[in-house]
């Protein structure tokens, strides 16, 4: 009906971890300019879905299709998916001892631009991106995520997103472990990033973040499946009534 190409589209995705199926056939289309949220309890399969879409080797996609800007991604390694424009902000970002934030960021940006790219603008871009997220310049020479607080780690994740400027961002529990000030800074970062040409998919347990980053669509995940889809009001209803309400709703009790 339209010639708008979705940013991300996946169909009937099934994911296995250690031989156990944790995602049992989910489909979704994110069009340019859209913000989607997947909500669900712990263990509902939402983090497995985002890891699988990014290409984590421990999460096997046993069935389904996934396209980034119309291109199939499931045969790509994670680094190729990243360079194609997919981004995953981690729930628990890892520390890499001895690798500074600046060197890490430079290597990441260089990989996106290509081996022979001119990097002379890096320092300027990097400094500006840090300032936008209220990250102290001293973080540049610290080892990435080593000894960082939960809030600092998440801000550094958003920093990576804003510098790599992906077409599609998957944000896995980006609000967890954040106090209200940090949530504001992080969500401002997401809002600055978001535009009519890219897509955002937030995975979250609580609707807290959704007060600051307004989703167009909310999908509720239970036991590896999307059980309900709606607008932002669905998030509020879940916050009010809890996931138990959904159980009753679903089963008609």
């Amino acid at each position, binding site marked *: 009906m339209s010639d708008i190409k979705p940013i991300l589209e996946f169909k009937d995705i099934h994911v296995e971890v250690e031989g156990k199926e944790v995602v049992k056939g989910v489909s979704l289309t994110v069009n340019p300019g859209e913000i989607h949220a997947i909500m669900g309890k712990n263990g509902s399969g939402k983090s497995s879905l985002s890891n699988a879409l990014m290409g984590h080797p421990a999460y096997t996609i046993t069935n389904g299709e996934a396209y980034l800007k119309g291109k199939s991604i499931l045969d790509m390694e994670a680094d190729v998916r990243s360079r194609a424009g997919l981004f995953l902000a981690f729930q628990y970002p890892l520390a*890499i001892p001895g690798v500074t934030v600046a060197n*890490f960021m430079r290597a*990441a940006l260089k990989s996106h631009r290509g081996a022979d790219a001119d990097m002379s603008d890096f320092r300027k871009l990097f400094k500006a991106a840090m300032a936008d997220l209220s990250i102290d310049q001293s973080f540049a020479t610290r080892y990435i995520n080593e000894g960082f607080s939960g809030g600092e780690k998440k801000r550094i994740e958003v920093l990576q997103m804003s510098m790599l400027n992906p077409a599609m961002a998957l944000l896995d529990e980006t609000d967890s472990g954040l106090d209200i000030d940090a949530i504001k800074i992080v969500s401002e970062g997401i809002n600055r990033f978001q535009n009519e040409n890219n897509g955002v998919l937030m995975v979250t347990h609580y609707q807290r973040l959704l007060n600051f980053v307004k989703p167009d669509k909310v999908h509720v995940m239970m036991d590896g499946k999307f059980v309900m889809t709606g607008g932002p009001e669905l998030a509020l209803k879940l916050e009010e009534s809890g996931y138990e309400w959904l159980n009753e709703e679903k089963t008609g009790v």
Partner: protein
Amino acid sequence: MTTQNQDILIPEITPELKRGPQWLQDKRNSSKESYNNTPIPRRGLHLWRYTDPTTFVVDKAEVADATFRTDLDNVIESELALLQNGHSSAFVLDKAGRDITFNLADNLVKDGIVISKLSDAVETHSELVNKHLYSQVNSESGKFEAMNSALWNDGIFIYIPDGKSVAQPIHLLRESGMDNSAQFPRLLVVVGKNSEVTIIDEYSGGSETQSDNMSLTNSAVEIFGDNDSRTRYISLQRNSEGAKVYLAHRAKAQQNATVLTVPLAFGAAVSKQNFGVTLNGEGADSKMYGLLFGGGHQHYDNHTLHHHTVGKTTSDINFKVVLKDKANSAYTGLIKIENKAKTCEAYQENRNLLLNRGCKAETIPELEILNEDVICSHGATIGPLDPEMIFFLKCRGINQTEATRMIVSGFVATTLKQVPDDLKEKIAEFVTKRLEDI
């Protein structure tokens, strides 16, 4: 050559045994006796499980006069430039323990700092040498330590008088001869009260390929840090690929003295190195940050010792190993705390990164804690790179190979923080080169 698997005695007529004043000749001869009377260690014996001891036996009579690698002149030139630019305080070239030349910054001499041949120091600083030479590495340390104690031809003596600080590092380049050579370098360092020094002790050269005529370097290092002194000792072993290396290091830290020891090893075919610090006065502190990176068929066998003889002393070891290809490494780390040494703190960590399936690492932590009033911990890991770290980097567009290089460079960087900048760059370059073909 009939040296395989059998002991060869040091003959009475060896000229080295006649070097120095009578007391020294006596020491050399008793060391020779000790060597000749000590059987080759059995393979099951403690500290010999991983390396064939006959590797270090040498038929002295068949050792040729040493020839050296052809690019040595270039190395000397760049080292002298560092000295001229004020990046080092001294450059000492020790060719096979025979021909030793000294280049010292002017201010060193003015400050009364002594860097000289050990054979000269025996005369000029007889009291100090008599007191400290053989005090820590001697015929009782082991058969091959006895060998060095008998056969060292000439060595290096460094003395920092009380209250003196040497701002820039003293660089020793211990160049081994090529095929058929055997060398027995020796270093004695005395750091006076409240003095400070950094020494880079670099081993290079030796046989370039493995054969029946591989060069042997058997080195002994003794360091004495008097009260309140601060000693940084960096041992950099980057011998050529056919070299056999045996190194025995011991340091002593007196009251409130600090000793930083950085054993770095990248070279040689077979390398057995033993680093130890005795904490011998209240408030003494020793830190040891080791790093080795093996490739090809290199074989490493490292020991470390922290020996707390006195209470209120602290020690920390972090020994890192990176291996690729078919390289192998064994690390044995002993913390020994005497009964009377109360309220000590001692930590030990050994991390081994294996970059592919063919390489192999062993880690053997040993604790001999003879009193209960101490804080002590140790940890060890052996394994491939963390796949989660690799995934994290790949998620940012960095490919598998580049991610591996970054993680290894990071692993290495935390140890290289401990070494002076010029050396850090040199080693980082070397590590990058070694990571090129992964």
